[in-house]
C-alpha cells in the first residue's frame, strides 16, 4: 500500500523517513506561502536586524557608555560626529543606550511570551479536552482573567513582587495568557470532533495520549503564529511599565530611557534625540513582530488566505 507513493524500484521507506519527508515538504510549502507576503518578509528582515543588534551589542558599541561614572559627554548634548544621537541627561551616548536597550526589550518580550504561551496552551488544551466540571471551571477562570484590566493588575503585581527583568516578564506572562487559552481551546474543541481522534479513541487512546500526540502537534502552528503577536504586545507592555517606573532599575531599556527623558523635561527643552529614537525602535520592533505574526497566521490558517 505504501509503495503507491514511491517509484516501484525504490525500497519502501520507513515510517520515520516518510514523516521526515512530509515535514520537509510542508515546511517548503509554508515558506513559499510566507514569502508571498511582502509585509511579512519586511517584518522578518527588520526582526533579524534587531536580533543581530541585540546579540552583537558589545561588539558594536563600547559597553562603558552605559556606566554613569564613565560618561564622557556633557548633559543632553546635540547629535555630533562623536555622539551620533547626542547624549542623555548624564552625558551617556544615546546610541549605546539604544543598542543595549534592545536586549532588554527582546528578552522580556520573548520570556514573557514563553510564560504566557505555556499557561495559555496548557489551560486551552485542558479546557478543550476535559469534560464536565473541570472544563467549566477552567473556562470560567480564563474568562475571569480575560476581563481583568491588565495594566492596573500589572502595576499592583510589579509593586508587590518588586522590580526586575524576571518579575516584569512574569507579570506580563500572568496577565496575557487568557487570549491564547481561548484561541487554543476553540482549536482543541474542533480537533476533538475530527474523525482521526474518534479513531484514536476507539483504539483506546487515553486523554493524555490524545492531547499530547494529536491535539498538541495540531495546535502548535497556531500557537506559533499567536506567539509572534504576543511578543509584540509584551514588548509594548514592558516599555509602558518601564516608562511608569516599574522596570528593572539596574538596566537601561527603551521604556526607562523615555521615562528619564520625560522626567528631565526633554520635551520642553526640545531634546528630540532623547525622545524620538527609543520610541521609533519600539515601533519598529513591535511592527516587525506584528507583521510576521500576521503573515504566519495567514500561512497556518487557510481560512484567512484570501485576504
Amino acid at each position: 500500500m505504501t509503495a503507491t507513493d514511491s517509484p516501484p524500484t525504490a525500497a519502501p521507506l520507513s515510517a520515520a523517513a516518510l514523516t521526515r519527508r512530509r515535514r520537509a515538504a510542508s515546511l517548503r510549502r509554508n515558506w513559499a506561502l510566507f514569502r508571498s507576503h511582502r509585509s511579512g518578509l519586511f517584518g522578518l528582515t527588520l526582526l533579524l536586524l534587531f536580533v543581530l543588534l541585540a546579540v552583537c551589542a558589545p561588539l558594536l558599541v563600547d559597553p562603558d557608555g552605559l556606566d554613569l561614572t564613565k560618561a564622557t559627554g556633557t548633559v543632553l548634548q546635540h547629535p555630533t560626529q562623536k555622539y551620533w544621537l547626542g547624549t542623555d541627561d548624564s552625558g551617556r551616548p544615546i546610541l549605546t543606550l539604544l543598542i543595549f536597550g534592545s536586549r532588554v526589550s527582546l528578552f522580556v518580550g520573548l520570556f514573557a511570551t514563553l510564560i504566557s504561551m505555556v499557561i495559555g496552551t496548557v489551560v486551552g488544551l485542558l479546557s478543550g479536552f476535559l469534560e464536565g466540571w473541570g472544563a467549566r471551571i477552567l473556562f470560567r477562570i480564563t474568562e475571569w482573567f480575560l476581563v481583568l484590566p491588565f495594566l492596573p493588575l500589572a502595576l499592583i503585581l510589579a509593586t508587590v513582587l518588586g522590580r526586575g527583568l524576571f518579575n516584569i516578564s512574569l507579570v506580563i506572562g500572568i496577565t496575557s495568557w487568557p487570549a491564547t487559552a481561548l484561541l487554543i481551546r476553540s482549536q482543541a474543541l474542533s480537533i476533538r470532533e475530527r474523525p482521526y481522534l474518534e479513531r484514536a479513541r476507539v483504539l483506546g487512546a487515553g486523554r493524555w495520549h490524545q492531547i499530547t500526540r494529536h491535539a498538541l502537534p495540531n495546535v502548535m502552528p497556531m500557537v506559533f503564529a499567536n506567539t509572534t503577536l504576543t511578543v509584540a504586545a509584551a514588548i509594548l507592555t514592558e516599555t509602558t511599565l518601564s516608562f511608569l517606573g516599574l522596570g528593572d532599575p539596574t538596566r537601561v531599556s527603551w521604556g526607562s530611557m523615555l521615562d528619564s527623558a520625560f522626567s528631565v523635561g526633554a520635551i520642553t527643552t526640545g531634546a528630540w534625540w532623547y525622545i524620538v529614537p527609543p520610541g521609533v525602535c519600539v515601533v519598529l520592533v513591535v511592527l516587525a513582530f506584528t507583521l510576521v505574526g500576521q503573515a504566519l497566521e495567514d500561512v497556518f490558517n487557510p481560512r484567512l488566505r484570501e485576504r
Partner: protein
Amino acid sequence: MSQVIASQPAPPVARRKSYGRYVGAKVLGALGSLVFVLVVNFFLFRVLPGDPARTLGRDRLKSPQDLANFRKEYGLDQSLPHQFLTYLQNTFTGHLGDSLRYRVPVSHLIEQRLWPTLLLVGTSTILAMLLGIWIGIVGAWNRGRTFDRTSTGITLTLYSMPEWWLGLLLIAVLGVGLGPLHGIFPTGQLHSSDVDVTSLKGVLDTAWHLVLPVTTLTLAYLAEYSLVMRSSLLDEIGEDYLTTARAKGLRDVYVRRRHAVRNALLPTTTVSALSFGFVVSGAITIETVFSIPGLGLLSQEALSTPDYWVLQGTFLVAAAGVILANLVVNLVYGLLDPRVRT
C-alpha cells in the same frame, strides 16, 4: 396527509433561550467575575510573599510595637477568613482604606478623580469607534486600493506605538512647538487654574485642554476598531447574499450599508468588548503624560509611595468598570444577534 404534517410546528432544532434568560446568564457571569476580582484584590495584598505588615509598612515601621499596631489597625492579626469577611463588608460599604499619601479616604479620592477619566476615555472611545469603523469599512470595500494600503499601514503603525509616546510627540510638536513655530495647545492639565469650570469659559477651556489628550487616545484606540472592522467586512464580502443583493439591482451603497456592514459589525462589537482593559491602560499613561487629575494619574502617583490602598481601590474600580462595560456590550449583542443566545 402531507398537509397535516406541514401544519404541525417543526420540532425545534436547538432551543434558543429567551432574551430574559440570556440576560440572567450574562448578569450571573458578570457577578461571578466581580467576585473573582474581589478575591484577587484581597489576596494580592494579604498573601504577599513574607510578612504583609513588613511589606506594606516598608521601612516606616521599625519597632515590634509599631508592627503590632499596624497589624491591629489593618486587622492582620485575625484569621484569614475573618479578614476576608471584614474586607467584603468594608468594600461594600465603600470603606477602601485611607491613602498613605493624601491622608484621606480612598473612596473620596476615587469619587473626585472619576469624572476627568470618564470624560477623557469616553470621548476618545466614541471618536475612535466612529472613525475606526469608518476607516475599516472604506478600506475593506476598496481593498488593495491606495486608501486601503495607506490606512492599513498607518493603523498598523499606530497599533505598534506606545500611546503615551505618541502623546509625548504631540506635546512636543503642538504643545511646546518645533523650532521657530510656537505651540498652540496647552501641554497638560485638565483646565487652567484660574477659571471656573462650570462657566461657559471654563467648559471651553477644558475642551481646549482636552484636544491633545483626546486626539492621542483616539489615534491609539482606533487602530483596533479599524483593523477588526476591516477583516470582518472582508469575511462578508465573498458571501452569496451580497451577490443576491446585487443581482436584485441594489446600488453598491445599499449593499454595503444595509447588508454587509450590518453583519460585519457583530464581530467588531465582540472584539471591542474585549479591548476595554486596553482602554483602562490608555487612561493611566495618557493622564500621566498630560497630568490630567483622573484615576489613571492617581494610580500612577500611588506607585512611588507605594500607596497600596489607592492601588487596590483604583484596580477595583477599573475592574468593575471593565466588567460592567462588557456586560452592556454582551446584552446589546444578544439583542442584535439572537444566534448568540444559545
